[in-house]
């Protein structure tokens, strides 16, 4: 007999996104169909091929410490919502791409900097220092899947008893280095991001941070906290196929989804909603569409994507989208997919165009990364 692991729940969320600096504001603007994409004169003047992006307009921080301040600000909001004084043994699990990108850029421009203080670990270390924490820590650099990876590592540590509470999520300051890199690898759109659309031409860069307080459900209930959603399981796989392109049939992506479902002890028929990775690139959306059709067959659940609205925040993307999934579960609503206008008949995925109220018990949050890294996080609505 398989013993179900003790449920792990989200009790606090905090974020900074290009569509708002709180979960409720992001949700409200997402439901209204807004997009944060705009043209940035500074990027245009500096000569970038792509000057459209989704950035945080009103977040002030020292440029070399933008990432860690994003993470810290998001963590404060998450802790406040959780209504918890963090015990010293709280674990910190942070995902990102490289760290403080601006520091890497400045070093390359000739500034004297020791980059050891600007890696992903600097985000984790700052949260541990500010909140006086000494529990387990993970600084995970798995690019665009890093948020899901960090959440999964936190769940694993909570289940194994290594941590009683976890702060987990993803952080990504706006990165010119990534802007140029993705642009030169022809992954960027010039105008807008259109997940699974016939006319999609790529991604647009975003930034932000989303941090969550995770606890065992019993611990949360014992202290009178309100669980917002349950994190059930994480499926991970690697295409082992190509440095940038996904395996075109989506088999690796499908494996990650299948493993999440198997670990959660459920079949694909009970999934109500998939928050797709939906980067808007021709190759990635095509492979993800095949993966979803392989798993779900003709009975596709509701599918939405957020990158047309908030851009692709790389290491923070799946964490920001996890907040959207939790909001969807709380409000029993699938958000619209900004940029999705004409479904690509070849992909065969019709995303939500308007906010859709429907019963949602289970949602999958997909996140895939260059290097063939695939992840799918399974969440369940919390019911007492």
């Amino acid at each position, binding site marked *: 007999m398989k013993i179900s692991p003790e449920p792990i729940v989200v009790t606090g969320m905090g974020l900074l996104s290009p569509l708002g600096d709180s979960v409720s504001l992001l949700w409200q603007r997402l439901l209204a169909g807004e997009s944060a994409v705009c043209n940035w004169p500074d990027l245009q003047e500096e*000569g970038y091929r792509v000057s459209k992006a989704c950035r945080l307009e009103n977040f002030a921080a020292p440029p070399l410490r933008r990432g860690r301040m994003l993470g810290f600000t998001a963590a404060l909001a998450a802790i406040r919502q959780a209504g918890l004084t963090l015990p010293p043994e709280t674990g910190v699990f942070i995902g990102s791409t490289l760290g403080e990108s601006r520091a890497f850029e400045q070093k390359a421009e000739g500034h004297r900097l020791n980059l050891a203080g600007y890696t992903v670990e600097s985000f984790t270390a700052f949260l541990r220092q500010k909140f006086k924490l000494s529990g387990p820590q993970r600084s995970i650099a798995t690019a665009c899947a890093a948020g899901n990876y960090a959440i999964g590592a936190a769940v694993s540590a909570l289940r194994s008893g290594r941590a009683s509470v976890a702060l987990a999520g993803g952080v990504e300051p706006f990165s010119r*280095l990534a802007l140029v*890199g993705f642009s030169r690898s022809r992954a960027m759109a010039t105008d807008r991001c259109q997940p699974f659309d016939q006319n999609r031409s790529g991604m647009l860069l975003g930034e932000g941070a989303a941090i969550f307080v995770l606890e065992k459900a019993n611990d949360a209930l014992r202290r009178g906290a309100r669980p917002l959603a349950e994190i059930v399981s994480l499926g991970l796989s*690697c295409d082992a196929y190509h440095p940038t392109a996904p395996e075109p049939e989506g088999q690796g992506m499908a494996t990650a989804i299948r493993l999440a479902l198997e670990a959660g002890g459920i079949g694909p028929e009970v999934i109500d909603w998939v928050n797709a990775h939906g980067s808007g690139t021709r190759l990635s959306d095509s492979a993800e569409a095949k993966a979803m059709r392989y798993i779900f067959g003709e009975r596709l659940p509701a599918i939405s994507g957020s990158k047309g609205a908030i851009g692709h925040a790389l290491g923070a993307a799946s964490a920001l989208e996890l907040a959207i999934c939790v909001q969807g579960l709380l409000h029993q609503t699938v958000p619209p997919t900004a940029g999705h206008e004409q479904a690509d008949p070849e992909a065969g995925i019709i995303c939500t165009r308007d906010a859709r109220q429907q019963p949602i018990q289970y949602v999958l949050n997909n996140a895939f990364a260059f*290097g063939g890294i695939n992840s799918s996080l399974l969440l369940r609505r919390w019911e007492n």
Partner: protein
Amino acid sequence: MGKLIVIESSCTATLPYALEKDTMPGVGNTLEALFATQVEPDARGLYLASKNAGELSALRFWSDAQVSGVALANPELFPWTLANAPCGWLARQFRVTGPNYTYTGSAKALREALEQASEDLHSGRVMTAWVIAIDFGKKPRHNTALAAIRLSLRDQPGNARQQLNIAENGTGLLSAAAFLQQIIRDTEVL
């Protein structure tokens, strides 16, 4: 007595300074025997810890872009600017289709990698885990230091090279991390 994590095999090396993309073929040659296994690709996991994966390429990419102009930056250095590129390379080289973790930062990153590998072995998510520490040489006079171990879960240590005694609750992790750190210290020739 619970199951034990054992080191089935280990490997260390130093490699000459080069960008990540030029270093990895040498890393692959060095690690080839360590990856000889019959375990299903999906049940294999990679756990890479590095002080500076992606750093050299990111610096070169950006300094070149300042010369060429950002619109004409050398595309060959991307995605090696991403910290996870070396671990992705290893996955392709050795057909590892399970979890693919990259941890960056100080020596703590190594402990994090070991901890996750231990959790994944105990939970049955993977059957074989490779924990790899790689610190890329930062300057032409610096070598790249490489240390790697192949771990599995067993009832008895058998003919394992070394028993790590990492229990499910994490006991023994510190000594395991110290062991791996010692390996990489021994190989560091800076």
